């Protein structure tokens, strides 16, 4: 099987599993667990098959955005293989454990879905071969860890903890993104392999320090390093399987992984030493010290996790290859013993109903197996010989001694390391002694007993690994560790040995000191610690990071509110003024600083008729502006006049397609606005009152408008008279006929060269039409606009005054002659529209123009004969037309896939058709047909939906739904809530 296939399978299996699990019934616990177990085991199988080749490094490239150097690259080397093994291996054990931990009342498939998705994201992080891709997966891990921590979302603590974790890690992720962008800029590529080989250049670069700080913020927030450590203890509100997974092997190790990965690139400088080393040291001590005082089992484990993460960070910060080896080794060891301890804590919680160590005692009587396993794991955490924790901790101590020759830390470093190790012994001992030994517990919610066998199994596996690594490291972990170390350090790999016994040396002495002093400290202080009411360490409890975080968030919100109050408004006018003024001022500044617009005298002679035409156009525009408030109808007609002048300008300047489109759109727009006029309130000029303030404001607006007009005029003139630029138009002119078989280049551009744009555009048109339809379904006109229009009242009163006439007769007879003419015109306009459509490829015309013409045919019927008559005689289903048009256009585009061409490739040939002669037939024509059909549907839908408002029955008539109306058109709905609000109580 090709390795690239295995790589892709490794990442896609959990994604597919997550999707499948999300579709399972809410309480299908066993099905979800089986699915998740199958997926994780399959991933493990893939990993096993990749183990041999990964030592040399394998990668799979999928082009994504090759033009800017961003591709999907999945790579696997020794290091990422080791991390992937932890992610999938511990993942598989957590899947098994969670099946027994989660209660049948929980929506377990959702849990497994999140878990698998999180696993996929973690695998994505460790397997990414591209910096940007890595950040994306990194952020996905933040999102899914949020969902996992908040799984019991009914608990406020879980929501709070999840929000805190997400805020911290996602904010760090943003910093990381910027850091990665800088890193990519320095290396000249976002490809990880290129970046890894450019270490020298990057460290010497000016941007190194900002990039380093940003990347470290990302890694520190993720791996909960001081001062970003506060979120991790609060994340303990998550279900225990989540804690076991996220806080042992995965989420918090992502930051560690990143720093190990970039170790060859970023480390080796003083900045790295100071930043990473001090953050690690601070976290190590604070975490270990705080862990001692926790009464909550999971709280103790959370703080101990902090301290171990700090230990690994400190090792990475020491700038020594041997320390890096120890860091990788301790990462693996910590994952094994911490996952098993979390699971053991979960079992205790599950079987006794409490995690409070003050209530727990003597559990070894009830659960001997769990107790023995937990004891071994805790011993590994404390660094007892013959266990894996001992090996890496001894390497750590040896490294601190080796570093103590450097002046910065001298003896402080090994002393502090030993102190932290003693603390670690202390809290491990407390965990075991308080929980499992002593008298039987007195106030446990449940009577303790051993859990189901399969719940202990994952712990047993992990403890066995601890033992095997601790006793025979050379036969077990050594080759895997070596592959990982070589992947990171390459030729700089130092000599190291994984034996248990290195003889009597200083490191062993420190180990012994730590062990003995830890035990002594426990013996001396245990009663005081257990009696501590707060469950928090002395001194440190004052600095409640959570309170700081909360007040910081509150201040941010206050700042945002203040800014909104100060700088924002819900009023439209100031916003529009800003929108106009800002670009105007910026434009003026640019023109002023760049030496003004270059105005050329290279102009064509002014045609007096053209000038006259625009005199009319200008008067229309200004008139429309002047009349738009009190005389809407006049303004509308004047605006139409300006539109007609535009249309004539297009005719004048050799753009027939534009002229036709403009004319037709002008007609449709005018009809549309006319339909809307009825619903607007009457505005009476005699009520106008002019204050001084409003005069000033109008004066200012007028001057801004004039300046904007002058500026645009100058800009237009400068653009028009500039020397002809090298345009891509000649490309289209040369190829329109030879390659697309059309002589109307504008139409060929629309349906062939730029067909994808057109597809997007008609989609927008369809969406707008449907939106209008949807808004109007709920339209409630203002009360005073509901009455019968004045003209109709006149007509009706005329009818009632004359004995020979029925009421409504004048209305029926109104426009009799135009109505007949328009009814006759209907087929003629349709034929004309089809003609415009068919000739579109070679002559002015095409789908847009024909569609508008066709819809005008329908609108004329509505206008002349009325809505009821028209719909009684014509079935108009505009929504169907819209859907059909989109389908045809998309189908014409997708069709080219069948022949192996890219989307929307068109094909044409000249065909002899009897009587018509040689006709060019292009598949672009089919696309144009889609455009045509959609434009017809959209235009009719917009206008008719608006027109229907006039014949809707007033809402007070409760039951009346006019059955003669098309169901596709907005019909008045009897709405319960509206009716209720309208009835006077």
């Amino acid at each position: 099987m090709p390795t690239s296939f295995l790589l892709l399978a490794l990442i896609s299996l959990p994604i597919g599993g997550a999707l499948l699990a999300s579709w399972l019934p809410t309480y299908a616990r066993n099905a979800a667990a089986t699915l998740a177990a199958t997926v994780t085991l399959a991933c493990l199988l893939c990993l096993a098959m990749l183990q041999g080749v990964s030592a040399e490094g394998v990668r799979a490239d999928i082009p994504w955005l090759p033009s800017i150097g961003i591709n999907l690259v999945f790579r696997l080397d020794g290091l990422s293989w080791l991390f992937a093994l932890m992610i999938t291996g511990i993942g598989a054990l957590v899947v098994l454990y969670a099946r027994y931990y989660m209660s049948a009342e929980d929506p377990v498939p959702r849990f497994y879905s999140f878990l698998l998705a999180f696993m996929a994201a973690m695998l994505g992080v460790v397997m990414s071969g591209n910096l940007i891709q890595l950040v994306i997966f990194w952020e996905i891990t933040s999102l899914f860890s949020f969902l996992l921590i908040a799984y019991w979302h009914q608990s406020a603590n879980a929501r709070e903890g999840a929000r805190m974790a997400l805020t911290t890690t996602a904010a760090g992720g943003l910093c990381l993104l910027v850091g990665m962008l800088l890193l990519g800029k320095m290396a000249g590529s976002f490809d990880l392999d290129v970046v890894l080989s450019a270490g020298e250049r990057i460290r010497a670069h000016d941007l190194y320090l900002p990039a380093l700080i940003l990347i470290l913020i990302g890694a520190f927030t993720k791996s909960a390093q001081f001062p970003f450590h506060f979120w991790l203890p609060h994340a303990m509100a998550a279900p225990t399987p989540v804690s076991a997974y996220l806080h042992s092997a995965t989420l918090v190790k992502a930051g560690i992984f990143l720093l190990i990965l970039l170790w060859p690139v970023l480390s080796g400088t003083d900045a790295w030493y100071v930043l990473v080393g001090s953050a690690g040291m601070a976290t190590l001590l604070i975490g270990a010290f705080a862990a001692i005082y926790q009464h909550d089992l999971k709280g103790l484990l959370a703080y101990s996790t902090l301290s171990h993460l700090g230990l690994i960070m400190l090792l990475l910060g020491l700038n020594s290859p041997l320390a890096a080896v120890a860091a990788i080794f301790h990462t693996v060891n910590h994952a094994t013993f911490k996952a098993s301890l979390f699971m053991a804590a979960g079992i205790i919680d599950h079987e006794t109903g409490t995690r409070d160590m003050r209530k727990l005692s003597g559990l070894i009587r009830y659960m001997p197996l769990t107790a023995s396993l937990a004891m071994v794991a805790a011993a590994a955490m404390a660094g007892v010989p013959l266990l894996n924790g001992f090996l890496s901790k001894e390497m750590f101590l040896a490294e601190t001694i080796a570093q103590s020759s450097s002046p910065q830390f001298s003896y402080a470093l090994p002393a502090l390391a030993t102190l932290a190790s003693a603390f670690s012994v202390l809290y491990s001992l407390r965990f075991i002694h308080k929980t499992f030994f002593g008298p039987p517990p007195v106030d446990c919610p449940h009577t303790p007993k051993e859990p189901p066998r399969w719940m202990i199994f994952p712990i047993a596996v992990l403890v066995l690994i601890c033992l095997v690594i601790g006793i025979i490291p050379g036969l077990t972990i050594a080759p895997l560790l070596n592959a990982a170390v070589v992947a990171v350090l390459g030729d700089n790999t130092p000599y190291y040995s994984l034996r248990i016994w290195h003889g009597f040396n200083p490191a062993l002495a420190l180990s012994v000191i730590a062990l003995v002093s830890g035990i002594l400290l426990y013996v001396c202080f245990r009663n005081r610690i257990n009696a501590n009411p707060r469950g928090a360490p002395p001194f440190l409890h004052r600095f409640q990071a959570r309170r700081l975080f909360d007040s910081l968030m509150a201040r941010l919100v206050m700042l945002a509110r203040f800014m909104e109050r100060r700088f924002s408004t819900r009023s439209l006018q100031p916003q529009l003024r800003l929108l106009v003024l800002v670009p105007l001022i910026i434009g003026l500044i640019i023109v002023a600083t760049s030496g003004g617009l270059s105005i050329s005298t290279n102009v064509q002679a002014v045609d007096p008729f053209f000038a006259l035409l625009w005199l009319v156009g200008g008067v229309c525009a200004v008139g429309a502006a002047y009349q738009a408030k009190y005389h809407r109808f006049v303004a509308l007609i004047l605006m139409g006049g300006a539109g007609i002048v535009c249309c004539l300008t297009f005719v004048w300047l050799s753009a027939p397609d534009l002229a036709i489109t403009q004319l037709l759109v002008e007609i449709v727009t005018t009809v549309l606005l006319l339909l809307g006029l009825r619903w607007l309130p009457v505005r009476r000029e005699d009520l106008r009152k002019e204050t001084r303030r409003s005069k000033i404001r109008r004066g200012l607006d007028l001057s801004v408008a004039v300046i904007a007009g002058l500026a645009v005029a100058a800009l237009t003139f400068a653009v028009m008279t500039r020397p002809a630029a090298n345009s891509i138009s000649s490309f289209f002119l040369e190829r329109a006929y030879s390659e697309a078989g059309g002589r109307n280049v504008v139409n060929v551009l629309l349906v062939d060269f730029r067909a994808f744009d057109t597809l997007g555009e008609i989609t927008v048109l369809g969406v707008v039409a449907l939106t209008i339809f949807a808004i109007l379904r709920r339209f409630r006109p203002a009360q005073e606009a509901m009455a019968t229009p004045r003209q109709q009242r006149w007509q009706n009163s005329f009818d009632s005054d004359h004995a020979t006439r029925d009421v409504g007769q004048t209305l029926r007879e109104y426009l009799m002659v135009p109505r007949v003419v328009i009814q006759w015109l209907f087929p003629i306009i349709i034929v004309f529209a089809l003609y415009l459509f068919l000739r579109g490829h070679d002559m002015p015309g095409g789908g847009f123009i024909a569609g508008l013409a066709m819809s005008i045919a329908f609108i004329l019927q509505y206008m002349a004969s009325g809505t009821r008559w028209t719909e009684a005689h014509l079935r108009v289903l505009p929504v169907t037309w819209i859907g059909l048009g989109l389908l045809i256009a998309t189908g014409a585009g997708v069709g080219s896939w069948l022949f192996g061409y890219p989307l929307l490739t068109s094909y044409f040939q000249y065909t002899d058709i009897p009587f018509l002669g040689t006709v060019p037939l292009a598949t672009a024509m089919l696309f144009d047909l889609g455009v045509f059909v959609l434009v017809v549907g959209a235009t009719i839908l917009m206008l008719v939906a608006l027109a229907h408002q006039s014949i809707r029955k007033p809402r007070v008539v409760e039951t009346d739904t006019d059955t003669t109306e098309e169901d596709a058109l907005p019909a008045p709905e009897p709405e319960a809530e509206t009716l209720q609000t309208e009835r006077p109580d």
Partner: protein
Amino acid sequence: MEIVLSLAIGVLVASGVWLLFRPRTFQVIIGFSLISYAVTLFIFSVGGLRIGAPPILDPAVKDVSAYTDPLPQALVLTAIVINFAMTALFLVVLLASRGLTGTDHVDGQETTEQ
């Protein structure tokens, strides 16, 4: 010719901007349409003004400089149609707002000053 069209665009923009700042929805919609005219004419004019140049290809004339520039025309054609859709949507939104709030002020409530 250029100066006439530039001034025409300027007048359209000035009238449109003035209307954009007005408080009544119908004024804003008219202003919006006038600015749309100006913008379509501006984009169109970027290709240069050609009077009497053929827009339709003639297989006999190979020289591409003899024709009008089709690219701005194609851009403007779609712009005109989208303008129409925008105007329609805007109109319906303002009608709905008028129905809901009982006023045709752009903010949905009358202010003391106009």
